[in-house]
Structure formats: C-alpha cells, structure tokens
C-alpha cells in the first residue's frame, strides 16, 4: 500500500471524471467539457478530495446537485455520481425523459441492483434515449476519506448508523440488519478500492462481531465468483507485491466510552471539539463576541467564514497532531519567517530604484536580475503562505478563546489523571461546583469520565452529592442513566478498560510564563506536555498486530475470507506480526483516537495504520446521543 487510500480514491474519481478512461499526462490536450451531477452522498465524497479548481482543470464546467432544478444543456455529456436509491433512480429517469443532456455516464457509488437497472432501462426506452446512455459503472466508492489514513462511512444520514441507532433499547432485528448491511457495504467498497483482502479480528458478543461475520461472508462470496471477482488484479506484472495482507480490527464503541467524552489538547481534535468542523471544513463566526478589546465599540457584524483545511496546507499537515501551545508558537514562527521574506522583496525594490544611478553596474544588474526573478516567481508562494498563516491565526485564536473561557486545560489535566488512575489534587466536587470553569456540558463530561473510570463503585451518598451539584449547574442527567446501564452490562462481560499509564506533566516552572512576544497570550493557560499514552483501542491494536498474548484480545474471533472453509476458532493461522492494519470502530469514533493511532504508528517504524469509523462525532454530539438513550 504505497499509495494511501486517499490517493487511490482520488485517482478513481479522476478516472471517472475522464469518462472512465485513464487520464492522459499530455498537458496541452484538447479540452473536453462536461457537466457533473451528484447527490449529497457524492458531494461528501468528492469535496474533501477535489477542489473546484481541480474540477475545472478536468473540464467540468458545471457541478450540480441531482435534486435541484436543472436546465437542459444540449451537446454536453453529463457524468452522474450517486447512490442507487429509489428517488435518485426516479430523477435519472425524469432527466432521460426531458432530454437534458447529450450523453449520460452513470456512476453508482455502490453496486446497483438488477431491478433498478431495469427501471432505468425502461425509462430510457420510453424516452428513446438508450443510445445516449453511454456508460454505466459501479464505482465502489461508498466511503469518505478525510485524511491519508482516516475514513468515515457517511456524513449525510449518519443518524441511521449512529451509536444511538445501534444501541437503542427498542431496536428491531430488521433495523439492525439494515444498519449492518450499510456498514458492511461501505467496508466492502473500502477494501475493493484498497485492492486487498484483509484478515479480520473482532471481539465477541457485540455489534462488531455481527459486522465481521457479514463482511467475511460478502468477501468470501465475491472471491469465489471467479468471473466477477473484484480482487483479481490484471496488472500482475506491473503490480506491487505486498507480501502481507492487512489486518482489520473491528472494535465497538462500547469498549471505550470515556475517550469520546475526553477533553483534548491537540490541534485537530480541539478544532473538532470546540468549533464547527465537518469534512475538513471549519465554519467560524468572524468578529466573535468574546473579543474583550471591543467592549463599548460598535459590535462587529458576525459573518460566517469558511476555511478548508486540506492536504496541501503544509502547516496543517505538520501540526494537526501537536499540542496546542506548540501550534501557537509555530504560527508565530511562520509569521516571522513570512515577514522576513516580505522585507527581502521590499528591499529589492529599493535596490532597483538606486540602480539607475550606478554606471558600469552590469554585474550588479545581473545579480539583481537573478534576485528579481526569484522574488517575482516566489510572490505567488508568499501570497499563499500569507493566506494560510491568516487562516491558522484566526482558527487558533478562536480555539484559544474557547479554552480560556471554559478553562479546558484544567479539565484536560484532571481527566488525564482520572484516566491514568493517578492521584488528583483537586476534588471532583470542587471543579463541578466552580461556576466559571466551563459549560455544564464540560462538567457532565468530566463526571461521566470519573464514573466510567472509577475502580470501585461510587457510593450512593457520593452519587447523590454529585447529582445535586450537577443539577445546580444546570446539567442534564439523562446520559448518566445510560452510562450506569452500560457500566453494569460491561462489568458482567469483562474487566473495565484499562487506560494505561499516562501522565500529564505540566511544565512546572513555565506554567505561568508565556511567550512574551507571541500574539497568543496564553496567560493562565497551563503549558501542558502530553506523555505518550495508549488508549484502549491502540493497545488492542498493538496486541493483535504483534501477536502478543493478552487476556483481553485472546478471545477475539479470527476470520480469513480467503480460506476455503470458514472456521469458528480464534486461533490465528498466521504467526507473523502484521505490518499494515485498519482499525474500524463500529458506533462512532473521533480525532483523539485517530491521533493516538497516528502517534503509535510513528513510534513503530514500518507500520501503517488506517483509522475508520462509522461516524465522526465530537463530545457534544455524543452526549446528545447518550441523553437520548438515557431518556428511554
């Protein structure tokens, strides 16, 4: 897997946009124009990968939503990219009947059924447009890749496969089947795009196991069908041999409920937690009301600004996993470097001005010509850099405002201590009853983490105390009911998850001294340093990849779709450690786990870890789901 999943998906998309022929490298090729029609699923898949400019370069003149009003544009081929649902098929038939475009290239995100295909065929016949339907493809791209090594299943209808949907008390079998089918379909598409058949391991007794069983069956069926198998590579000679198959670890959210509620300290996870961050796009209010320097002045108009955090943004790629103070420093450094370059260019201007007075200045002129050339050619880069620096300054300032107002650093430190079972200096009750430390939601999160990670059961009187304190601050207590249920359930099943030895070591001497020259005056915000620690998911992955024996993972089931006969055993046939792994969390995941896995992969050279989840939520959204569950 030298190319990442994201690149593979991008390549597949580009090929599709080129009428399903491989794109030529010829730069001065004739332009061919086309129109792209997608539904919301397609839009979510394309938007993190290709920008509008790239679409234009590929000849897409218009990109429209399927269910919008579209005018007929004759003589233009149209490329459709959508899910094969009933309403989409109906709309396609309608388009065929109204003769909107010249030729139609239909691409379905996941496999379309025969009956739906016949629906389209009959519509095409009645409209006499059969010759216009030039190509029909099953693209198998039913997942959204956010980063090089992270993917989620869907963004549009995620309530259907959310944690709440899976763990509802009143769930029917049919509903569960439907949810499982959706998840398995997407995972199947993922492996088709990857081009590899994994070895699957999953724990027993929960949703992950159901997914594993179904996925195994689907892969097996596909492999047996030699004619239509998607996994036989035709390019055997030119292909890259990977001697090992990747390992797919299916985890369930119920194994580790504390991590989604955790307060975080790394840049990307903070943005996701605190700001509005979807599909690599941040939505912010400009001129925020929490700006203290503007008291008394005319209140600024709140305009929504949208920022894209893409792979091309080098600063983002470097720092998305670093702790926040580091990010603040780096932004400052980048700004200084940029100013220095700007001054250079300005100085050049003055030199050129003086040059006319100098005679015999051929050598100086030539030197300056070279400098001028380099300056002029570097101008676009400089402008781009400036834009990125502005972007990150705004985003980081917004995050910092939130941190300061909600005292998130205090929460983070406390939670880390809770999760590592080290002693805490402040009591939980103090923090909860502290009026200006965080929103009620933060306090609820903290309390839930305490409850989840407590070794011995909290006594009833303590619980009552906490309850009263929480109600005083205005928290909603329904998540607590659900967590109690959950805890009881998991206690029956196994020992509670061990969060490993982590530690948070505040830079004691420097905790109050901040970067004096920095714009980010982080007074009162502790400069915390994260020590390397492993979340439960990471530890499980570590055990499985290294084939270590551990009571937690020994009981995991083992599936190998390539084996002729399925076995019920959990004894792995392959004794060697794996080099590539894919971790998929059924029920939802978040950036904290992702970051942890990335750090783990970095610490072990030669390992590649890809993280996936059925949906991506931040703590607020998770709390909402928990309260819904707790209200039953």
């Amino acid at each position: 897997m030298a190319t990442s999943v994201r690149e593979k998906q991008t390549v597949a998309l580009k090929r599709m946009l080129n009428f399903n022929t491989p794109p030529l490298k010829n730069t001065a090729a004739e332009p061919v124009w086309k129109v792209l029609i997608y539904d919301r699923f397609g839009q979510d898949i394309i938007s993190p990968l290709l920008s509008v400019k790239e679409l234009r370069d590929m000849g897409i003149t218009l990109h429209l939503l399927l269910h919008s009003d579209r005018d007929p544009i004759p003589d233009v081929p149209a490329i459709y990219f959508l899910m094969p649902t009933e309403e989409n098929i109906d709309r396609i038939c309608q388009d065929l009947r109204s003769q909107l475009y010249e030729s139609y290239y239909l691409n379905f995100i996941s496999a379309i059924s025969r009956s739906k295909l016949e629906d389209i065929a009959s519509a095409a016949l009645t409209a006499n447009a059969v010759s216009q339907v030039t190509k029909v493809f099953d693209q198998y791209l039913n997942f959204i890749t956010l980063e090089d090594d992270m993917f989620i299943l869907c963004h549009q209808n995620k309530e259907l496969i959310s944690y709440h949907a899976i763990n509802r008390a009143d769930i029917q079998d049919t509903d569960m089947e439907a949810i499982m089918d959706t998840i398995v379909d997407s995972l199947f598409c993922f492996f088709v795009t990857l081009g590899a058949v994994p070895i699957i391991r999953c724990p027993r007794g929960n949703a992950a196991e159901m997914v594993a069983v179904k996925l195994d069956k689907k892969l097996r069926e596909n492999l047996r069908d030699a004619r239509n198998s998607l996994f036989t590579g035709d390019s055997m000679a030119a292909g890259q041999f990977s001697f090992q198959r990747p390992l797919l670890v299916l985890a369930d959210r119920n194994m580790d409920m504390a991590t989604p509620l955790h307060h975080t300290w790394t840049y990307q996870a903070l943005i996701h937690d605190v700001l509005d961050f979807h599909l690599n796009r941040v939505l912010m209010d400009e001129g925020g009301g929490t700006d203290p320097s503007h008291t008394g002045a005319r209140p600024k108009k709140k305009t929504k600004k949208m920022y894209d955090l893409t792979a091309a943004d080098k600063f983002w790629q470097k720092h998305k996993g670093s702790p926040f103070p580091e990010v603040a420093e780096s932004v400052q450094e980048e700004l200084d470097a940029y100013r220095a370059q700007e001054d250079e260019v300005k100085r050049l201007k003055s030199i050129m001005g003086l040059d006319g007075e100098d005679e015999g200045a051929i050598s100086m002129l030539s030197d300056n010509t070279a400098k001028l050339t380099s300056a002029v050619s570097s101008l676009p880069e400089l402008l781009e850099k400036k834009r990125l620096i502005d972007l990150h300054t705004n985003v980081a300032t917004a995050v910092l405002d939130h941190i300061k107002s909600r005292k998130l650093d205090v929460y983070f430190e406390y939670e880390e201590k809770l999760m590592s079972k080290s002693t805490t200096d402040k009591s939980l009750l103090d923090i909860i009853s502290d009026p200006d430390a965080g929103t009620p939601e933060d306090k609820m999160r903290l309390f839930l983490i305490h409850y989840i990670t407590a070794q011995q059961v909290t006594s009833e009187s303590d619980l009552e105390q906490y309850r009263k304190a929480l109600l005083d601050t205005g928290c909603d207590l329904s998540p607590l009911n659900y967590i109690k249920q959950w805890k009881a359930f998991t206690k029956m099943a196994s020992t509670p998850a061990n969060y490993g030895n982590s530690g948070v070591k505040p830079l004691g001497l420097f905790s109050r001294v901040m970067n004096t020259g920095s714009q980010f005056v982080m007074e009162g915000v502790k400069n915390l340093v994260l020590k390397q620690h492993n979340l439960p998911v990471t530890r499980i992955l570590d055990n499985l990849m290294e084939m270590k024996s551990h009571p937690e993972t020994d009981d995991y089931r083992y599936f190998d779709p390539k084996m002729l006969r399925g076995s019920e055993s959990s004894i792995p046939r392959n004794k060697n450690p794996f080099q590539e792994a894919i971790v998929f969390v059924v029920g939802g995941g978040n950036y904290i786990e992702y970051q942890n896995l990335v750090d783990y992969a970095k610490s072990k050279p030669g390992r590649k870890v890809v993280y996936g989840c059925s949906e991506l939520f931040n703590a607020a959204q998770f709390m909402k789901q928990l309260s819904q569950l707790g209200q039953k």
Partner: protein
Amino acid sequence: MTWRFVYSAAAGPSDMAVDITLLFKASVKTVKTRNKAIGVNVDSVKDEVFKKSRPKSGFSLRAKEVITNITKLKDFLLQHRKDYVSAGSLISTDLSRMTDSERDQIDQDAQIFMRTCSEAIKQLRNEVEKRATSAQIREHRVAVLDLIEMYLKGVCRLYSEQRAIRVKRMVDKKRLSRLTPEHPGKAEKTMDSEPAEEKVVKEESSEKNVSEVQDNSVNLWEEGRVEDELSPEEIQMFEQENQKLVSEMNSLVDEVRQIEGKVVEISRLQEIFAEKVLHQESDIDNIHQLVVGATENVKEGNEDIREAIKNNAGFRVWILFFLVMCSFSLLFLDWPSQLHEVIDFAAVPLPMQALSAFEHGGGCMMLVVCFDVSGVRKED
C-alpha cells in the same frame, strides 16, 4: 499456513469500478421483450432517426470549431518544430533546412492565427453575455470559453518558446560571424592550429558548424597562398598572437553565455510583467474615468462659486439701493406737509422750531450716514 500474494497495482490501478454497461444493455433488451409481450406500443425506430438529427446549438459548434483550429495550429507548430529550431547548419541536408524567410513566414502566420482565435473567443464571450439564456447555461458557456482560452495559451507558449530559441541562436550566429571579418589572417591561423581547442571552447553545434565551414572556406583560401614563406620569428609571433586571441575569445564566450542567460531571464520577467500590466489595465482605465469625472466636477464647482460671488455682489447693490430709497422716502414722504410746516413755522415758538429743524436735520443726517456707508460698502 500459506503466503497469499495480493497484487495491488501502484502506478496504474486495476479497474476497481465495474463496467456494467453490457448489463444495462442486456436489461434494455429484457425490457423490450417484456414490453412486446405485454403489448406496449413503443414507436422506437422512427423516433430514433428523428432524434439523431437534433439541432446542435450554434454555440457549441463554433466552440468546437475554434478548438479544432487551435489543434491544427498546434500540430503545425510541432511538425515544423525540428526544422524551425535547427540552427541552420549549412552542411546538413537540404530537406530539413529552412530559410529565414520561411521562418518569418511561419511566425507571421502563427501570430495571425492566434489573433483570429482569440478574437473568435472574445466574440463568443460577447454573444454569451448578450443572449438571455438561463443562468446555468451561461455559466457553462463561460467555463467552456475559459477552457478554450487556457488551451490557446498553452499553444501560444509552445510558439513563444520556439521563437525564443530561434532568436537566441540568431543572436549567437551574428556575434560569431562578426569575429571572422575582424581577424581574417589570425582567424585562419587559429583555425589551423587549434581546431581541437575550438571544439572544446564552443559547445553549441551551430558554432562548430560555422567554424568548420569557415575552416573549409579558409582552407580553400589558404591553398591559394601556399607559396608564401613564413620565417620562424613570424611563426612565433603569430603563435603568441594566437594564444592571446584564444584567451580573448574565451572571455568573450563566457560573457556571451552570461548575457544569454540574463536575456532569457529578462524575457521571462517581461512576460510576467506584461501579464500583470494587462491585468491592471482595466483597473487603470477605471481610475482614469473616475479622475476625468472628478476634474469635471471640480470645474463645475468653480463655476458655481463664481456665480455665487457675483450674485452676492449684485445682492449687496440691491440692498444698498433699497436703503437709499427708504431714506429718501422717509425724507420726502411728508413733502406736502413740509410746505404747510414752513408756512406754520413762523407762527410756532422758537424751541418748537428748533425741534422740527432737528427732525429734518436728523433725516439729512441719516442720508449722509447712508452715503458714507454706501461709500464704504462700495469700497469693499
């Protein structure tokens, strides 16, 4: 336990998407047969023929024409590129040789072509603006024209690259051909004694060819001079001069190379600047308009102020006149009664006379005062 190899292509990924067009066509056939069985009337054949001859919109036809033209130009340029760029080596075969006039012709033709293409694009753009079609179609057409323009720019870049190389070589040739008439005798000797050094010094094949040619021609010339005897001192002197010449030429060549590089850089810079200047042209036009409007406004303003001053002065005159009139009227309003007064004056006692005289005097004073004031005023 067996190893399983998984082939995953690196550069050219295997077709992960499944082409189900054939499946679709099969379903079409199924539906057709089903319809026939049910008896649904589908009048397919005739309508298909009609549908095929659907009118294509004028816009797309013309756009496609422009593209084919640009492609023709590109092919033409690429085809003749080798000949065009070749240094005009005089000893190579005649087939690939191009005279300068031919090259100029190509240049001219290409420029005219490019200009017509860009004008066609501009025309299409204006049409798109004028025609009131739906927003989507307009956006689509604008984007199509952008794509065509980019394509044209790419082809123009090809052309300008070729031209730059040609100009460079011409400049080199000129410089070199200048050297030979300056040192006819020495040059001949230099060619004779150090052909190897020449080859090392002059990298470009053009120069080599030129020197070889000169070698040949000079050798011919030299054969005619075989009878001249050269004494050993003369030979030594010539040799020294040769050395000097070689070093001079070396430094010249270095300088030439340097300047070459600079010229290329400058041309590149100029391209960039020209682009930027063109961009700013529209802004400057706007500013010009605004400035013109502003000067006109200022002029009008000045006029208005002048008018106002004049009106003000005239106004003052009228006020003065009014006051004078008022005072005169005051004085002479009781003209008839004054007559009576004079008659009665004698009958009235003295103090009363003085009082009435004062009254009249007051009136005269007022008149005098007014005149003073008006005098002052008129001096203003």
